[in-house]
């Protein structure tokens, strides 16, 4: 992802397709994106592939702050993608996700 001025922004259908407290994966342009809907409110988008060993982040458990990869339990901040679980794991890209009147809109720019 380079050119931020022509960032891909996609309308992905109703927000309700993501159950509250879970995440689901979508394709935004060529980018696999996991969108999370914590119980505490808001929407967050991260690249869907865990930087550790490729785990599916959309399948992870989450709380208001972080998502936990189901493969080896590394944790990433929903807001920034920062890895907060130690070891030498890279951060994951964070994107912007919005609820536009019940519709999910994701753009490949930093939130």
């Amino acid at each position: 992802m380079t050119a931020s001025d022509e960032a891909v922004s996609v309308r992905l259908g109703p927000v309700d397709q993501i159950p509250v407290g879970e995440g689901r994966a979508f394709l935004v342009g060529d980018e696999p994106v996991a969108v999370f809907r914590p119980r505490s409110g808001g929407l967050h988008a991260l690249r869907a592939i865990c930087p550790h060993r490729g785990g599916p982040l959309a399948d992870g458990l989450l709380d208001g702050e972080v998502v936990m990869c189901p493969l080896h339990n590394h944790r990433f901040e929903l807001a920034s993608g920062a890895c907060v679980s130690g070891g030498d794991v890279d951060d994951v890209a964070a994107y912007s996700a919005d609820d536009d009147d019940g519709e999910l809109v994701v753009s490949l720019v930093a939130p």
Partner: protein
Amino acid sequence: MTATLGTEQEAGTPEPDRAKLVVVGNGMSGARALEEILTRGGADRFDITVFGDEPYGNYNRILLSEVLANAAGAAVDNEDADGWDPDELFLNPTDWYAENGITLHAGVRIVRIDRHAKVVMGDDGSVTPYDTLVLATGSRSFFPPMDGMWASKTDLTPGVFGFRSLDDANAMLDHVAGARTAVVIGGGLLGLEAAAGLQAHGLAVHVVHPTEVLMNQQLEAGASKVLRSKLEDMGMHMHLGVKTSEILVTDGAVSGVRFTDGSDLDCDMVVVTAGIRPNIGLAMVSGLETQRAIVVDDRMRSVDDDDIFVVGECAQHRGEVYGVVGPLWEQAAVLADVITGADPDAAYHGSRLTTKLKVAGVDVAQMGVKTPERESDEFVQFSETGRGVYQTVIIRDGTLIGATLVGDVSKVAALTQAFDSRSALPEERVKLLFDLGSADDSASAADLPDDTQICNCNGVSKGDLVGCVHDGAETVSACMDATRAGKGCGSCKGLVREVVEAALGGAGAEDPAESYYVPGIPLDKPALMQEIRSQELKSVSAVFAALAPEGRDDVASKMGLTALLRMMWPEDYVDERDGRFINDRVHANIQRDGTFSVVPRMSGGVTSPDQLRRIADVADKHEIPMVKLTGGQRIDLLGVPKEKLQEVWADLEMPSGWAYGKSFRTVKTCVGTDFCRFGLGDSTRLGIDIEERFKGIEGPAKMKLAVSGCPRNCAESMVKDVGIVAVEGGRWQIYVGGAAGATIRKGDILATVDSHDEAVLITGRFLQYYREHANWLERTYDFVPRMGLDYLIGVIVDDVEGIAAELDERMQEAVDAYVDPWAADQQEATPGQFHDALPLIPLPQVPVRASEGAPA
């Protein structure tokens, strides 16, 4: 096989100012040396080429015994898939070389060094020039000469194994399934580890050792005796002071061994761990000075050639050859300092050896001398054979010069420090081993110098851990997570705990969070259950709202709470799918590539032609990449993408086997009275009835059971959470708290009962008590010793607390509330429940394996 990885951009246009560094050997020492060189900016100074004759990236040899011990659990039996991760074995995957601009010739053996032309020659005909050469050729198993050992000049007789490389471990794994009895020749550290690993696979294991002292490299006679009796308690057979004269071969494969006294022992597998020999052939033919190993000076250079450095098990420094990691780490650092010029005067002065390890589950620590050497040496000895504890310290002129600890190594931090720093010792020597009421335990860890390496697998120092605490980490596990300390072989966990607790502030180090049932709610299990009951909290979010600080939800607490609530409110628990781990959301076990494994229930391991045909049809129709028998006697369909799960279940028309949950898993059975000529009880019937009754019951951790029809114990009942054995007179013995995974523990006898029905009843009552009282993720092998066997017998068998009827009733409720999740979730429970979570990745990603077991 030869694989060339990395960049070869130098081929056409060599840059004149970059020197050529060649490393021969990519095992632990070669890799460590490389890493040290890279951290000192070596990549900018050198073009680096590495030769390794094992066709893998280098791997962590410390973990080899875990491969063997745990493959019974993790690698082979997917039902045990927590714990060991095969990827962790590889220190550096082959990509790592490429990423660092290193050219790796895996699978090429260097056969000669031409020191005048400064080139190395490979067995593939290649000639590679060097300016600086590092030899890290390591060592290999020594095979004592005896008849029957070799099938040809290069191949061992089928059934004979060394235990040094990943190939060795894998070959053994391939062989254990069909084997019953193994003989391990050589009772040193590696031998005992191999023995324990094989025992975990259910083999009868005999250890043959030429002296009376097991692990005589590290231990003196007293310590060894204690270790020996512990191992014998675990069922290992010891043949000490005996030599093997011949390996007996029938039809081209091992059939037994013969001892020098002429007696024979039948076996179908022999593992040779009779010591190691440094690989010095290359150095010898190339004219370098070798004695037991390649002789080096204090800069780690060959004494004959300033451009050739040597590191690890093939180096002999001041007469010593080291075979453990600690010294190797120190040598690699010195070598890198000198080679890169970071510190041209760096010097290695030899290592004082401190060994800490777990031998077949028994803690052992040893440092310095084993026994007093002079009249004037003080010798303090403590032995409590009943508990399997043995400790000695040896003091010369007021300084600690040696210590041995077996069974209880709680004092190792204080002793290591006294040993390393040669510091003053207490007047009363016995204080070295006992606190004698002074309660000053954490002082010792606090006094360790900051650069003391605590975790040898991941190279974490005391300073790193203390830094973590200063950065705000408040718990031992937080520090372990942040530094990865304790995440290799795990033997340093006790020491990590001491260091962190000391850093957290002496007496204040008591970590209240340790008693919490889940990290996000500051209550232990009884208090938490009390609150849940009195406030009638029936969903995970309700628990967080009512009991968590500021009502905050916590990702690490959700699974534990979900399990607890389902246990407490079997009927009216409010199901919130986001409180479940992915496995429990889709009722299948997630694999490394994001696909899932599907294991249908096959109670007691009994199936039918019709079921097998259906499974085969499903496997064909859905192109299942691997079909595998599990250790729990059922069939695992691996590599199913999430969106196909419902279809696969529907086509199978079989119920879920719950191979994914913290729940009742399987009952392994033997044939029992139906067919077996030794059977004393109908073990198959009992196993099926127990499985049908308790199927899918959730708990704090998984529960694996077994029923054996006679004391030959073919279903391995003694190493199960609940294991039942038929004994003469129509009675059943019930064992609890056994394990044979990452931990090995023989179960304790809870009760001997007179009937099938009673066996079912007591099993259920024990499981219910465990569900209600065990901590989250606490397996029965920890739970049973924590509660105490006598106490459990009192509560569960003798009903001294008068709660037996309630326990039975609550278990009955759980049984009544059972629904097969595969049938229930044929309708999606939440939107997108079975949608793929990685839309771009073609699945499955794990290579398909041919049924012969040959890697694809």
